[in-house]
């Protein structure tokens, strides 16, 4: 994502919490594990646009959208939604409509 200077410092990321979640999900039977929508960092999409898309499509608050956007930017990707495979496919398709780079995967996939 292109960087714009007037952004606040990122909150200390919850990347560790995320890892714990996926570790516990790894022990779940495959059929019970939820699917995830992942958005990946790219050098083209503007940070303000990514945040706008998260608010507009998922209905997230400004704060939550900004947190997720910064996680994408700093960690290279972020899980932006979890649920059934069909739902995540719809989200990924919507992200592609907006021009964001997004994939779906099952939680706990190595």
């Amino acid at each position, binding site marked *: 994502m292109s960087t714009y200077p007037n952004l606040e410092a990122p909150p200390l990321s919850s990347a560790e919490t995320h890892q714990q979640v996926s570790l516990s999900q790894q022990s779940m039977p495959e059929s019970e594990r939820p699917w995830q929508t992942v958005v990946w960092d790219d050098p083209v999409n503007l940070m303000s646009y990514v945040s706008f898309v998260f608010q507009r499509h998922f209905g997230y608050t400004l704060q939550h959208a900004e947190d997720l956007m910064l996680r994408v930017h700093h960690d290279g990707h972020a899980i932006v939604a979890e649920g059934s495979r069909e739902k995540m496919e719809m989200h990924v398709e919507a992200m*592609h409509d907006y021009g964001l780079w997004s994939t779906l*995967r099952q939680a706990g996939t190595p």
Partner: protein
Amino acid sequence: MRISRINAEGFTVLHIHEDEADLVETLVAQLVSLYRDYSTGEPDPDPLLASLDLGGASSAPADPALARLLPDAYEDDTLASEFRQTSERGIVNRKIQDADNVLALLGAARLDGIDQFLPDEETTLTHDDLPAFGSDTDSRVLSVPLDEHGFLSWVKTLTAMRLALAARLAIDTENDLEREPLDDMEANTRAVYDWLAEFTEALLSAQRS
């Protein structure tokens, strides 16, 4: 270019110089032909059916611009291929609809003639300082009112144009943005790319105000 916001009606108005409008039209027309040349078969004339059209290729497009516009939905190749074969055509058709809407709104603004829009109390001028792209700042100014749907078509299409240009400029990482242009043509493409980014920023900030 100027962007204002009419809060009462909740829409955003673009005040765009005619030479800037020409540039946008040229780029959008190129984007539409990129999509149309790629997509197989005529889209359904009904816009809703076209947007739900099933079908698609079995692997990612070879053209790097199209590959960015139509990325894989799964990291696994087999799953990505299966998904693309049912979803891709609908996505392409929806992208064409957004681009066509941008062209239609610009076309209507040209017919309306001069910028009849004067700032008043209900108006917030959000971007009076966006640099003009063209050299002829005395050219006619068109006013393009954008409702929610129009606004979305514009920001999505501006983004699509930047994704396509980034592929042509081989911008793969943030470091590539620092690279010196190879020649005048690349420098010009970079200038357009940066202008489109500023334009998108301004539209998004107008929408927040």
